[in-house]
Every structure is written in structure tokens, then in C-alpha cells.
């Protein structure tokens, strides 16, 4: 037991606080695989909100155009795609005007890739917090991914404008967009959390990730429809969970039947990825303060 000798233990004042029977916190070496501590995460939900709010506030500080950048980036990308892939390369766009065909996917992709990238770099960028204060570390990459939702919302305004301009009418299938955006967020979170933990130990992630994101862009149906891939090979790109999400996103926008099978695969992949990466994160979390 402790070394405290009762003869030398003096109490200055009557304590104002009644001790609980069980300890509030027990600190000891953990076993390797521990599940998420959801109660602890819930207790720190305000911090998640504050870190998100900080990321959003800081992003466009000292820029003249401010939040307009959230629209400018996907807009310019869409214009370039429409010119090169739509007009010059004549990529088939499944009967949809090419600006809206490209913009719909670029919008989702921009949110996803920014989420993964900022999530992956978030722990390194907040090393001063990790070495100085305790809180569930999972909050940091989560806030980084979630902060991208605002940019997504701003850029969506242009999508609504394009839909109206090309005379698409509002249908019930638009309701499907909400779970699809949620699924994209979860996938970005799963991938972002995994890379963020890996990045603390292996700084190679910083160099490998942009490359990986670029490859991921080309294997996703952003500048082409999945129908362009020959029938017998279509299963191969469908291993990419983004295929089901992007195809479903377009299908609900343009009022076409949803590709349920690949959407189910994407959902399954996302959930497995999320569970796996949070376990892995928890396992590595213990040594973050020493490694970072």
C-alpha cells in the first residue's frame, strides 16, 4: 500500500467534497485490445464541438474570399473535367448533362478526400494537446473529418443550382442523399482514424497518403460512369467502397434505380473498417504521447 504515514498526514481544512465509493478513474497498464470507451467519448462531446469549430474558424482566417473557397475548388475542377473529359474525350455521362454529372461526384469526392487527408494529419498537427492534456484521442481525427461537412454543405448550394438550371425536379429519391452523406462521413472517418494513428508512428504516411488518394480518385467513378467498365470486369472496381456510394449518389439525384448490391457492400465495408480502425486506434493510443 501507500507510503503515507498516518502520523504525518495532516489535513488543512475539512473537505468540501464527499468521496465516491468507487474510484472515478483507475489508471493502469491496459491490455492490448480494448473496446471504445463510449461513456468517456460522450463526456467529452463538447470538446469535439469546440475542436470542429476551431478547425472551421481557422480554415478561412485571413483569406479574402473566405468560405467561397469551398465552392471555388469543386467548381473549377468541374469546369476542367467538363472541358477535357466531357467535350474533348467525350466520356459518356449516361444521358445527364456533363457539368452536373461531374459536379455531383466531385462534390462527394472533395468531402471524402479532404476528410481522409485532414483526419490523417490531425494527430500530428495537434501534438501539443496530446502531450499536455488528457481526453479521448479519437476526438481529434473525428473533429477534423466532421469539420469538412460545412464545406460540403456550402458546395452543395451549387449542386442545387445546377439541378434547377438543368430542370431536374425534386423527387422522393433525394431523401436517400442523407444516409449516403452519412455513409461517406463514416467511411472517411474509418480511413482517417486508421491513417492518423499510423501517422504518429510512421511518418511515411504523410508522403504515401497523397499518392494513395490520387489512385483512389482514378479507381472511383468520378470522371467516368461505372457502366464504361466492361461487364465481366465490373466486380473489380466495385471492391472500392466508394463505387457503391458515388453510383447511389448519382442514381438518387437523377432519379434512377439504386445499385442496392454495391451499396450494401459499401455499407458493410464502412462498418467493418470503422470497427477495425477504432480498435487499432485504441491499441496505439496508449503510446501517442511518447511517440509523437
Amino acid at each position, binding site marked *: *500500500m*501507500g*507510503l*503515507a*504515514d498516518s502520523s*504525518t*498526514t*495532516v*489535513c*488543512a*481544512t*475539512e*473537505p*468540501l*467534497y464527499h*468521496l*465516491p465509493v468507487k*474510484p*472515478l*478513474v*483507475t*489508471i*493502469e*497498464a*491496459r491490455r492490448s485490445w480494448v473496446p471504445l470507451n463510449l461513456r468517456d467519448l460522450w463526456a467529452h462531446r*463538447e*470538446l469535439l464541438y*469546440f475542436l470542429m469549430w*476551431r478547425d472551421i*474558424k*481557422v480554415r478561412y*482566417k*485571413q483569406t479574402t474570399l473566405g468560405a467561397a473557397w469551398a465552392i471555388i475548388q469543386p467548381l473549377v475542377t468541374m469546369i476542367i473535367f467538363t472541358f477535357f473529359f466531357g467535350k474533348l474525350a467525350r466520356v459518356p455521362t449516361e444521358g445527364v448533362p456533363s457539368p452536373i454529372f461531374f459536379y455531383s461526384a466531385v462534390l462527394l469526392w472533395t468531402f471524402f478526400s479532404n476528410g481522409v487527408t485532414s483526419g490523417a494529419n490531425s494527430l500530428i498537427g*495537434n501534438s*501539443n*494537446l*496530446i*502531450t*499536455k*492534456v*488528457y*481526453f479521448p484521442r479519437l476526438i481529434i481525427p473525428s473533429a477534423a473529418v466532421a469539420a469538412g461537412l460545412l464545406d460540403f454543405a456550402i458546395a452543395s448550394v451549387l449542386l442545387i443550382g445546377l439541378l434547377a438550371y438543368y430542370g431536374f425536379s425534386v423527387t422522393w429519391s433525394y431523401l436517400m442523399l442523407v444516409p449516403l452523406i452519412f455513409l461517406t462521413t463514416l467511411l472517411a472517418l474509418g480511413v482517417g482514424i486508421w491513417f492518423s494513428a499510423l501517422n*504518429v*508512428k*510512421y*511518418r*511515411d504516411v504523410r508522403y504515401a497518403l497523397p499518392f494513395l488518394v490520387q489512385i483512389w480518385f482514378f479507381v472511383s467513378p468520378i470522371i467516368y460512369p461505372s457502366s464504361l467498365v466492361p461487364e465481366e470486369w465490373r466486380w473489380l472496381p466495385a471492391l472500392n467502397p466508394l463505387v457503391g456510394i458515388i453510383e447511389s449518389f448519382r442514381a438518387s439525384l437523377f432519379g434512377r434505380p439504386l445499385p442496392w448490391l454495391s451499396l450494401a457492400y459499401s455499407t458493410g465495408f464502412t462498418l467493418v473498417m470503422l470497427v477495425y480502425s477504432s480498435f487499432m486506434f485504441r491499441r496505439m493510443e*496508449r*503510446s501517442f*504521447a*511518447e*511517440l*509523437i
Partner: protein
Amino acid sequence: MKPIINVESISKKFRITPGESPSVRYETLRESLVKLARAPFVWNRPNGSRETIWALKDVSFEVMPGEVLGIIGRNGAGKSTLLKVLSRIIEPTSGRVELYGRIASLIEVGTGFHPDLSGRENVYLNGAILGMKHREIDQRFDEIVAFAEVERFIDTAVKHYSSGMYLRLAFAVAAHLDPEILIVDEVLAVGDASFQKKCFGKMDDVTQSGRTVLLVSHSLGMITKHCQRAILLDGGRIVRTGLAEEVVAHYDAMVNAQAEL
């Protein structure tokens, strides 16, 4: 009476690679792959090139509610490691700590301050990072700003603050925390002479408020003034524990004996 903090034989081992600066402890993927490839051949020399250091070895003590405990020791004695284990920043290699109250640690002031955000925004952000609820910050906001004496500049980005103003605001947020257990590292008194006086005054308030405080300081005067009891760490072990005056005297003698050698 039951202790509010119960530390049972905490040990912490660090691995260091000789010839490498401790700040470069992360490995590259390549190193890990090389290690993995070599693994079958190095089984007979475990931890071959790695040295281990026990930053803490078998440290046990108890702290009663309302007690102000001083922790002293030379640089590298394990004080900071102990505080980091207690504040749950690093995990002990073995041992167990039980905390019967909410804990807040001031290992540094201004943690998470963002230069581009205004003073007001940083108060909220820093407060949240230190574990305050939004409502609590709302209640104490005016008090914090008045304490830091930065009323006129509260909506200016803190990167335009003088270093004194910055530190005053950072200290003010920390000083208005209200946990049951407070861990304070070093003298957090910052700024010019008059503000330092205010900081010491605040420290007096905190240590006399009936709250449990762990105070780490190099200033032995601070320890004897504020603490009833102290522990002396050396080489990661507790070498002396008892009344603050006795432990400080022991430490003085130890340092003097060292100086004569």
C-alpha cells in the same frame, strides 16, 4: 479517512536508442520492415540495441482530500513522468492509480491556444480542452478576462498580443478551473512583477480552498509555504516522504552533498 488519490507501485519504462536524440523516437516504415525481416535472426538478443530507463520505479503514495502535496527532486528524477501518468497522458508500465475525484492538470499554460483566434475564442477553446463545460466558461468569462487584464483586446487575435498579455490570459483560464484535484507543474507565475504577485495570490487561494493539490516546483520556498507534506523523488524512486519541512531539508542536504563531490 479514505485517500482521494491512491498510487500503488507505479513504474514507467522508457526505451531509448543510444546515440539517438530522444525526440526522434518514431520509427519509419522502412525500419519496421527491416526489423520484421530480421526478426527470425535476432531472437537470441532481445532488445539488442535498445536501452531501457525506468523513469519511475515502484512509486506508491496516498493523498488525502484537501491535502496539498509537494513533489520535489532534481531534473530527471521522474517528477514530470509522475504528473503525466497521473493526468493520464502516458500510461504506466505497471502499477495502479485510483482517483476519487475529477482531475485537471496544469502542465503548461495556454495549451491549444490558436494564434489566429481572438482572445475570447481562445478562452472558450482552452477552457474546453482543460475540461470545463461551456456553461462554466460562460459563468467565469468576465472574471477570467478581468484577471488577465486584457478587456480591451479580448476580440483581437492573440497573435497580436504581447507575450505578457498572452501568458496572462493563458494563466487566467487555467486559474479558474474547478476540479477536485489539481496538478500544478512548476511555478506558473507569469508576466511582470505585479501580475506575478496576483498569480501567487491565486495559488494561495487555490491551496487554501480545501481542494487537493499536487504541486511540483523547484522553488523550495513554495513547497514549504503551501504544502503540509512532500515527497522527494530521485532516479524514479521515492527516497523520502513526510512533512514538507523535513523533506525539503533532506533534499537540501542531498544537493549539497552532491555539490561537494
